[in-house]
């Protein structure tokens, strides 16, 4: 059971983020919730690629005696996570600028008040 502990951490982060998005009324707290889900899924991708006692897949200054490819961590999840992090930055930037606009327009960040002011 201990072996799968990182995956349990992933599930915990995803659900903390989902809880924040579904139940918090403040817009910025929803944006923070989405960032938590995003870092949870990134953690999931990275832990998929780990190999017991693996070294970073870089040949410059490789510690002596590491047999490749068994001794090296799997590089593909790291490339996927790089893309996912940049996506996280882009989505975060867009959501925060929209939140600034909603605050300037409605004067409040409370989801329920915005829905009432809209009608």
């Amino acid at each position, binding site marked *: 059971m201990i072996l799968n502990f990182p995956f349990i951490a992933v599930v915990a982060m995803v659900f903390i983020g989902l809880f924040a998005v579904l139940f918090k009324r403040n817009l910025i707290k929803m944006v923070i919730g989405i960032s938590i889900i995003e870092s949870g899924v990134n953690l999931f991708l990275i832990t998929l690629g780990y190999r017991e006692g693996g070294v*970073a897949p*870089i*040949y*410059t*200054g*490789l510690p*002596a005696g*590491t047999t*490749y490819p068994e001794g090296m961590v799997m590089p593909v999840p790291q490339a996927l996570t*790089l893309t996912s992090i*940049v996506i996280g*930055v882009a989505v975060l*930037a867009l959501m*925060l*600028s929209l939140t*600034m606009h909603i605050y*300037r327009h409605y004067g409040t960040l409370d989801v329920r008040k915005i829905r009432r002011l809209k009608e």
Partner: protein
Amino acid sequence: MSEMSKIVRTVSNMLFPFIVLFGIYVIAHGHLTPGGGFQGGAVVASGCAMILVAYGSGWVFGKIKEKRLSAFESLGAVMFIGVALLGLAFSGVFFGNFLAGSNLLFGVTPAVGSTLADINTGGVLPLMNFAVGIKVIAGLFVIVLVMAYASSVKEWK
């Protein structure tokens, strides 16, 4: 965002060159040591954001219009897709690594296994690292600058 105190401004002045130098190192050695275009660009962009916080968005906005920064970013993006199209022209396949193994720039193929870092390797990759580096620096800085300036402007047209 208004200006910070004199001390913060002088310290950020001193730190800024080292941050930018480290960022460019990470971009340039992307194909040898951990790092690359995105990571190095983010380091330099964080240095620029430090300057933005220290000197306030009004001063920075006076210095650099976001129009020119967005032009820089388009330039980086066009360079990146240009290198990919060059791959199509020279090696017949989109994203082809036409420089690896050729005796032009960055053409040396490193020996398999643990080798010393020779910067003249990697074929197209250093060019792509450089293009993406420009793009990430200009892009992230524009996002931070525009958001900071918009929050300081009282009345939006």
